[in-house]
């Protein structure tokens, strides 16, 4: 790859790092080669441009380096509530106007809150790129919301928690239960969907503070993917974003977890559930290490697909269940879009005639197989093919949003969006011996957390009137 550094554009100095298309490997059908242009505006905003003309659509995604992990201690669920507030009005776009602007221009939009970022994205017909950049810049400058808007979204978010958790069987299982049980640092172990009382207690003052702390250009990355001309995009990005004030975000708190040395478990009775369930998770190696990539392959070998060891053991051989869910960062993303302590986990719903104990004994058998002898090279090859195929899907997901997601995370967490083109090479370095060593250290029982869902024996039956 080539680096072309530093040039002047108008009045603003822009450090420009342009990564040309990575030279294709001998076999054209291997490897991911995504064009990446990366630079920063003087106010600190990171910008990634990655054109792809396969459909007349353009995606604009803004990721802020603020996830629910580091929301205020007295305000669980606030990072997510705030995400909703970002749709409630800014200087030039009143309530509903951002949404209508996107939709009436033929686009779709959404936002989401994750462990380590909050994102906002829209996919529009490609001739509407400038319109969208203007709108994103408008809300990056600041919000203009009322007490009434806040109250409305507290109602909406309260209903979101009800529909996804409180009125659902297995509502917090395992996606909230597992991290809350496994981690010891509050930042990783609190209820990030939020207690309803915390959500209801939020004030306009809280949202001002939160915006000032975290929502500055310096704490964000803007990604444009899809069908566009780079020179046009650069002009518009400059025009609408360069004038936003620079502001230094708060330093990030310590989110580290100590090495886990004993198994943890939690059992809960779910009034709505009629079948028991069990989930199990292990703390991941640090992101970006050789062991992290080894665990990525273990995920493919052990958990993903019907060829996986756990599917074959728990579904086919033992008939405990019809499927095993799980993975790395399961339920809230994947192994490439987080930046802190994380779990690799599996979960399943089973009949009462099987106990969690015997199911976990079967899981042990699979894990011991990985710990006791090196996997065959064929298993690694198959895992890499699955990963590569899955990456192609991610790249073209939802009009380019999947590609923007990877680029944003590598820019935000590593300051190197072109890492997207190194993913496969990093997996190819993994050896059978490294997989075995990783399984021994990280799939230890003392690094494991179990959550179990019990059912009430005499649950009230609903009747039809």
């Amino acid at each position, binding site marked *: 790859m080539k680096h072309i550094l530093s040039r002047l554009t108008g009045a603003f100095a822009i450090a420009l790092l342009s990564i040309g298309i990575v030279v294709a490997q001998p076999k054209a059908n291997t490897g991911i080669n995504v064009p990446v242009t990366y630079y920063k505006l003087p106010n600190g905003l990171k910008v990634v441009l990655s054109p792809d003309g396969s459909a007349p659509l353009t995606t604009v995604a803004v990721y802020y380096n603020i996830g629910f992990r580091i929301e205020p201690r007295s305000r669980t669920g606030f990072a997510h509530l705030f995400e909703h507030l970002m749709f409630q009005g800014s200087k030039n776009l009143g309530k509903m106007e951002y949404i209508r602007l996107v939709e*009436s221009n*033929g686009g779709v939009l959404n*936002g989401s809150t994750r462990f380590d970022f909050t994102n906002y994205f829209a996919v529009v017909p490609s001739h509407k790129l400038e319109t969208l950049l203007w709108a994103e810049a408008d809300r990056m400058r600041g919000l203009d919301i009322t007490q009434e808007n806040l109250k409305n979204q507290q109602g909406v978010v309260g209903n*979101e928690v009800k*529909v996804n958790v409180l009125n659902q069987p297995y509502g917090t299982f395992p996606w909230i239960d597992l991290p809350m049980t496994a981690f010891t640092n509050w930042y990783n172990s609190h209820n990030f969907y939020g207690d309803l009382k915390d959500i209801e207690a939020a004030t306009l003052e809280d949202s001002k503070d939160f915006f000032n702390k975290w929502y500055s250009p310096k704490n964000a990355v803007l990604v444009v993917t899809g069908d566009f001309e780079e020179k046009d995009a650069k002009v518009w990005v400059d025009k609408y974003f360069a004038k936003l004030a620079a502001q230094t975000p708060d330093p990030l708190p310590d989110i580290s977890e100590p090495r886990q040395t004993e198994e943890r478990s939690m059992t809960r009775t779910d009034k709505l559930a009629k079948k028991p369930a069990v989930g199990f998770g292990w703390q991941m190696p640090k992101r970006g290490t050789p062991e992290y990539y080894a665990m990525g392959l273990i995920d493919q070998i052990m958990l993903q697909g019907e060829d996986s060891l756990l599917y074959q053991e728990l579904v086919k051989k033992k008939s405990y269940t019809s499927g095993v869910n799980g993975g790395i960062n399961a339920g809230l993303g994947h192994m490439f879009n987080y930046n802190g302590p994380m779990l690799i986990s599996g979960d399943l719903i089973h009949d009462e005639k099987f106990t969690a104990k015997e199911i976990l004994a079967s899981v042990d058998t699979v894990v011991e197989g990985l710990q006791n002898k090196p996997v065959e090279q064929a298993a690694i090859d198959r895992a890499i093919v699955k990963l590569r195929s899955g990456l*192609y899907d991610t790249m073209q997901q939802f009009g380019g949003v999947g590609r923007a997601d990877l680029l944003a995370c590598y820019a935000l967490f590593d300051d190197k969006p072109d890492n997207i083109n190194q993913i496969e090479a990093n997996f190819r370095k993994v050896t059978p011996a490294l997989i075995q060593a990783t399984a021994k250290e990280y799939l230890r029982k003392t690094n494991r957390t179990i959550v179990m869902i019990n059912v009430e024996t005499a649950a009230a039956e609903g009747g039809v009137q």
Partner: protein
Amino acid sequence: MNKGQNRLRKRAASSLIFKDLMSKLFLRLCVFAVILTLTAIATFAQKETPPAGGQPKPFVFPATEDYTLPNGMKVTLVQYGSVPKVAVQAVIYTGTKDDAKGKKAVSEMTGSMLKEGSKARTAEQIALDTAKMGGSLNVGVGTDSTNVRGEVLSEFDAQFINLLADVMLNPSFRQKDLDRLKANKLRQLAVARTQAGTLAWEKFREIVFAGHPYEQINPRDEEVNAYSLDDVRKFYAANYGASKTHLYIVGKFDQAAVKAAISKAFAGYAKGTESTRNVPTIAGKRSLTTINRADAPQSTIYLGMPSPSATDPDYVKFVVMDSLLGGSFGSRITSNIRENKGYTYSPGSFIWNRFKTGYWIESADVTTEQTGNSIKEILFEINRMRNDPVPAAELQGIKNYMAGLYVLQNSTRFGVIGQLENMNYNGLDKTTIDNYVRRVLAVTSADVQAMAKKYLTEDRMTIVVVGDLAKVNEQLKPYEVQ
């Protein structure tokens, strides 16, 4: 990759587009449960006006090659996209509509059994072979069609066709697999019956399609317990066959090699019988039905009326009306009960379409205390649509949205297959696809109002509410049928 299916997540009724495209990446904590829509930009008094953008680029649906094998199986090939992957989908026109009375979902069990092994491969070999191709293989059974589909890296295009044909044509149908799948089905049913959304939708279907196979979504436990291997074998023999199968290949692939592979792999596929249609007669009688869910913090509402089918001249006009009313985020009902009142997170309308059949449904999970008010506001918005013409700017906005969404819908391999399959299922031709955007853009304010007046009538309205009846019954009094 494939995941187990016993985790039945929250209903995502409204937008199939959203569900298909977003399911893997954006599961949780999204600001909107579904992508919904609307209107025009308000006037920006003393504000900056958004830059208008450039000129739209034309979107052309990709070219297809269509042909029929000597045994009657139809084939459609589409070179599409830039990614080295290929999607393969066989659609067999059989489904739960063909289940015998008292044997509901034997059709589904037959589909599931296909993956349990062929005469040449064990289930584990099927899984391993698929994984080696970077692929997935799924069987889905609906009311009218069974889909056997997957996608693999392009380099394995012909190999995957061989595998798919083997699974479809040579199932081993063994007792021990059936026993395990029956236990799985019973467990999944037990989970489904604890979900408010499932209960509401099941009841709604039972009411509006009474007497037709569409009335029953799920089998009863007794029915599942009684499934025999003989039932599965008989269903397969009677309902699978080349003359009711359409094979789609979309993506990057070697056209000549794929055609040769198809001819060879499906040569032994018996012709079978022609598919039959069974169009329901819909009465659309006014009713209110409640199901108790003690202590539920929300009520799940399904409210709907019969609507024009995909072949009806009213269809495109109705879809525009639906997008304005409840089918988009900026839509009137969503603006009202979510963004104004805060009663709910995930309201939305959708159109349930089958051959010559349609139903318009608004569904929402609303906070228990606001159940009656939510219905009141939904009806208020329906009546506003019936009584007042839609302002020009609001209408233009929704038309732009639908035109843009159409490009997005057709920007994936399975999106392209879905579009073609929908056309073939309904007996329509390519002009339906080519003219869609033009027809959307031609809809007038008078058309929209006429659609609401003609179809959204309270005398044909079915309402189902699942909630805490101790708190809800009183609120529902005004909607009881007199």
